[in-house]
């Protein structure tokens, strides 16, 4: 032990510059490696997606992004129906889940006793832990017949069903993250506002929500990420029809999302084929969309 220490001090250290020596601490090395691996994994993932989808992009070019026909066996690859479907499903999910999640967080954080708050939280955490295929099955057996009969549709498989199932799945994320953000605001801030005779609505909009916004924003981002990447539940209810909604706001017809397409067709595509490469392109578009959302959420105006 002594010899090792002396070796370090007199043999190794004199040859290493002071700044480098500063980073030789094992904990610092571990932290730095973790940091590098996080960045590296994103780059590797992107590189892999680009490399595997490159043959497809080389063969068909970027115009496939706005093509509306998808017949892989006739070498027709149009991405637009799946992109539109994905955006619609995300939008419907957020329209339902954001107000509900936020309201649930406000009620549980500001109006409930600690016992009830914990009870609601446990419920939400259980909801978050349920596998996505179970949500899909619930949608298949409960939601689809309900939509079909109540809206008098030919089939219940549609974008509305996909959005509704997704909203149920992302609700716990938004609620729990928003609740944490609201709970993190100090009691002094609440009492200061109360002491000024500010009513609860103003306290909410002028004190609580602005201060909790960074946490709520993170919750929305995580929820969007989950909704964007969700495959199984969406695949079971969306209908998997590669066509654009007609008119564009018709969310009551079967449609397709990027994840659902990948999940449904990957087993049929032979490795290395153009079809396989096109599905990798779908993955690349999903990754770019997720990154875009992430960048948008970190935009300065939104942070404030």
């Amino acid at each position: 032990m002594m010899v090792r220490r002396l070796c370090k001090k007199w043999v190794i250290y004199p040859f290493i510059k002071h700044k480098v020596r500063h980073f030789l601490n094992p904990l610092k090395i571990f932290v730095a490696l973790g940091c590098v691996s996080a960045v590296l994994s994103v780059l590797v993932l992107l590189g892999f997606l680009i490399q595997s989808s490159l043959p497809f992009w080389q063969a068909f070019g970027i115009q496939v992004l706005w093509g509306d026909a998808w017949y892989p066996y006739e070498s027709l690859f149009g991405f637009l129906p799946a992109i539109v479907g994905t955006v619609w499903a995300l939008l419907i999910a957020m329209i339902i889940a954001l107000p509900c999640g936020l309201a649930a967080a406000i009620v549980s954080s500001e109006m409930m006793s600690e016992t009830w708050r914990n009870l609601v939280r446990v419920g939400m955490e259980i909801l978050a832990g349920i596998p996505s295929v179970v949500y899909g099955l619930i949608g298949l057996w409960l939601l689809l017949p309900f939509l079909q009969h109540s809206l008098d549709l030919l089939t219940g498989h549609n974008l509305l069903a996909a959005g509704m199932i997704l909203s149920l799945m992302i609700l716990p994320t938004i609620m729990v993250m928003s609740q944490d953000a609201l709970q993190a605001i100090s009691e002094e801030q609440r009492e200061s506002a109360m002491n000024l005779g500010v009513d609860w609505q103003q306290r909410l909009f002028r004190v609580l929500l602005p201060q909790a916004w960074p946490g709520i924003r993170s919750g929305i981002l995580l929820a969007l990420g989950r909704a964007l990447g969700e495959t199984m539940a969406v695949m079971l209810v969306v209908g998997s029809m590669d066509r654009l909604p007609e008119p564009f706001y018709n969310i009551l017809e079967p449609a397709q999302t990027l994840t659902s397409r990948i999940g449904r067709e990957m087993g049929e595509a032979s490795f290395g084929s153009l079809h396989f490469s096109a599905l990798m392109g779908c993955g690349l578009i999903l990754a770019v969309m997720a990154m875009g959302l992430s960048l948008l959420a970190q935009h300065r105006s939104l942070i404030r």
Partner: protein
Amino acid sequence: MNLSHKAMPEPIEGSQKNVGHAFDSLCCEHLYLHLSNQVILKDVSFSLPEKGITSLIGPSGAGKSSLLRCITGLNETWQGDIKLNQQHLRQWHGGVDALRKHIGLISQKPSVFPVSIAENVTFGLSRKQRKQNQSTWIQHCLEKAALWDEVKHRLNMPAASLSLGQQQRLCLARALALKPSMLLLDEPTASLDPRSKALIEASLRQLAESMPLLCVTHDLQQTQRLQGQVIFMCDGKIIETGACGDFFEHPKRIETREFLQWSVCDCGD
């Protein structure tokens, strides 16, 4: 410049409907408070003069802060009677939010909102009042809190950039912006440096010329500097009250003498 309370310009549109009495005084009668099966206040009765400082002293856990929280409605489970302007607090016109605009409460730890200094001052005003130009009013409130000279060139800076002492004076200005009838102060200088302490005490002395102030403090030297009336509380009860000089020179009750003795020892250490 005359900075007395009555000489201050009115904020655009008066913020209280209950103003209008010739005098403002607080009267607590047989006040009891129970929290978690513990008796916090036992038969507390006292009244405040129309103006002047009343210091509320006593050992920790005596119920001083709880008493202030009862008056402002932060503790709502009290029993007994509290009257302000001869009006029962529980039947206050406009509810507890309107009442709180009438009573300014400064707590021990300054808590400023993450907005600018000027916005902090006008935070309690209504939306309509905030939209109108309140620069003269902001100036007067900050002057009364002895903060104007230090912040007049940076009113749009975040309030969090101020020092702790400045933040406490900003809280005072924020409470004064609502033109309260009385001020309740819960150890307002507990964690401040001597200069900030002196500035706040000077402001309080000036404010006491026009409104009643009830100041909870552990600093007996501060109590003597502020003069006025003294209320001594122990174990949730009022033990003794009296004028400042008389209270310190001729305490009547044995509990008061013991408390003062301990406090003198503490100051000596």
